[in-house]
């Protein structure tokens, strides 16, 4: 069974008198432990797709299935729970909480989903994995950009999600740091058996993924890896 499936996803906005078709009938499937990139120009619908898959917004029509469960009928609280348990997020601006130290930032999802002592051990293990085992009690703003993004990756994985959604994760990093980060994400994708979907403008990054989905004007222009897989 596919881990995540989106069926005929559509998202339309009303902007004044104009109807914006941010996403228009997109259907995709993400299997376990895939490493996927979504590329396209600004306004192609990449971020909208990510927000819809991440259950951060509701589609105009269509649905998202997570582990075979149709999320269309779920209430906001149920969507939050499912999001917390099955989906991790990595953002361009890291979005670490300044009032929390590194370990507490990684453990943040556990606050809402539970996890206790086991969760703390998992967070410490992940921080070791991302190379920040010695910075657990540092404040987020004491870390470099690359280090902060590694903390964000550890946070995204702490609940053992099925899918990590990364929105321009290397957008704020220099080339070398970005390269190291992609290597790390690739490694965790294999070790943790977690699917990773990266929304990016960076074609070099996209080239390092197993599957590249190109969006244009809210529709799927091509789905290279899927085509390869089918073929």
């Amino acid at each position, binding site marked *: 069974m596919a881990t995540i499936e989106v069926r005929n996803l559509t998202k339309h906005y009303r902007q004044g008198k104009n109807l914006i078709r941010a996403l228009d009938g997109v259907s995709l499937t993400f299997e376990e432990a895939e490493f996927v990139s979504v590329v396209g120009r600004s306004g192609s619908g990449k971020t909208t797709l990510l927000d819809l898959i991440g259950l951060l917004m509701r589609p105009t029509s269509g649905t998202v299935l997570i582990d075979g469960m149709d999320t269309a009928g779920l209430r*906001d*609280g149920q969507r939050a729970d499912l*999001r917390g348990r099955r989906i991790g997020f990595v953002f361009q601006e890291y979005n670490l909480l300044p009032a929390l130290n590194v370990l507490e930032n990684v453990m943040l999802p556990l606050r809402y989903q539970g996890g206790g002592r086991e969760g703390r051990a998992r967070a410490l293990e992940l921080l070791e994995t991302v190379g920040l085992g010695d910075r657990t009690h540092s404040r987020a703003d004491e870390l470099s950009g690359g280090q902060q993004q590694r903390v964000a990756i550890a946070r995204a994985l702490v609940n053992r999600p099925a899918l990590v959604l990364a929105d321009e994760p290397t957008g704020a990093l220099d080339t070398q740091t970005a390269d190291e980060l992609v290597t790390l994400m690739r490694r965790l994708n294999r070790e943790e058996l977690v699917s990773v979907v990266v929304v990016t403008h960076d074609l070099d990054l996209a080239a390092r993924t197993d599957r590249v989905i190109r969006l244009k004007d809210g529709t799927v222009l091509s789905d290279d890896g899927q085509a390869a897989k089918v073929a």
Partner: protein
Amino acid sequence: MEILRNLGRRKLRSGLTISGIVIGIFALTTMGAMAEHMNALLAGGETYFGSSISVHGDGQGQSLLPMSKVAEVAQVPGVAAASPSYGFNAKPGDQNGISFGPGDLILSWDPNLSHSAFNLNFTQGHAPTARGEVAMGSDIAREFNKKVGDTIDLPVRPANAKPDFQSHSFTVVGLLGKTRTMPDTVAWITVPDAQVLLKDSLPAAIRDTVDTSQLTDSITAYGASGASLATLDQIAQRITDTVPGVQADKPSQTVGQFKSASTIFTAITTGAAVLALIVGGLSVINTMLMAVGERVREIGLKKAVGARTRHVLREFVTEAALIGAIGGGLGYGLGVALTTILNALMGASNPNQELFLVTPTLSVLAIGFAVAMGTVAGIIPAWRAARLDPVTALRAQ
């Protein structure tokens, strides 16, 4: 911990907000402590006068009553007991200092006091039973530094005493426990001694012609144990109607006066609470709204990692409540410190000049009020935070 760090990130703003609450709760504590002191005083009077009937001359003749009236009052149906009653200023001519109570008094000990709902307990010794004995209230004993076995001259001779001023030596035989009301400042003597003091108080021209053992200042009458105010009012009316030359005060009227005064002091506390509410509440709302505005992305992130609406609501309300608790704790602490210092300074020479009483009720009210105010003031900002759309919040600049 996260909440404290969030407050620490905006030290000036958090400090100013907490200061607003500190001022409000400080005012509530000090005003409340003053009101509690007065209310304790009034509550004692309410209990005493609500369970006894004061009988005095009807204003037509002399103010003193013949002793025979005591027996006549005692015969009135419904009266369980009646006693002669005498009262004198313990420090005649004392013009120094400010007194926040009835002042130091010498009263005749009433063996029938057990009929009253007012309880007096001796911490040492016993009630005066023989000539030359005095039992002292807690404040007056402290004022004159007396303990059982000591002697004291009463009334206290004033600096400008007239040549014929008389005082008498009494041996302290009992000390009463603190009541926070009138008995604390009373020296209790026997009726025969009180009659001697009555004679001393008469003009020299008639002093030796009057037999004060046959006179009383007033009469205190009691109904059956547990008699209601309405019943005592009826008995008072009956005394006035059936005993010639006397006027019995209806206890409900006296109690009403005490209650009116108590209402004023309660209004002072309420006013301070309203002040605290306005100053502190608006500060908290403002601070929390600014916090929500600054932490929009943080809220979006929390929602992205699985926080439900109620989680965000709870976190912000808790932060607001903590602001209230810190401000309340500091304000209450400052209030207690100030009232304790002032009580110590003012009561050093005379305990009757103490002005404040911090009761457990006031403590719970002050801190509870601050926390509740913070919580309520935090609800609107917290609700705004909790309802934020996660996508909009995450992309906020």
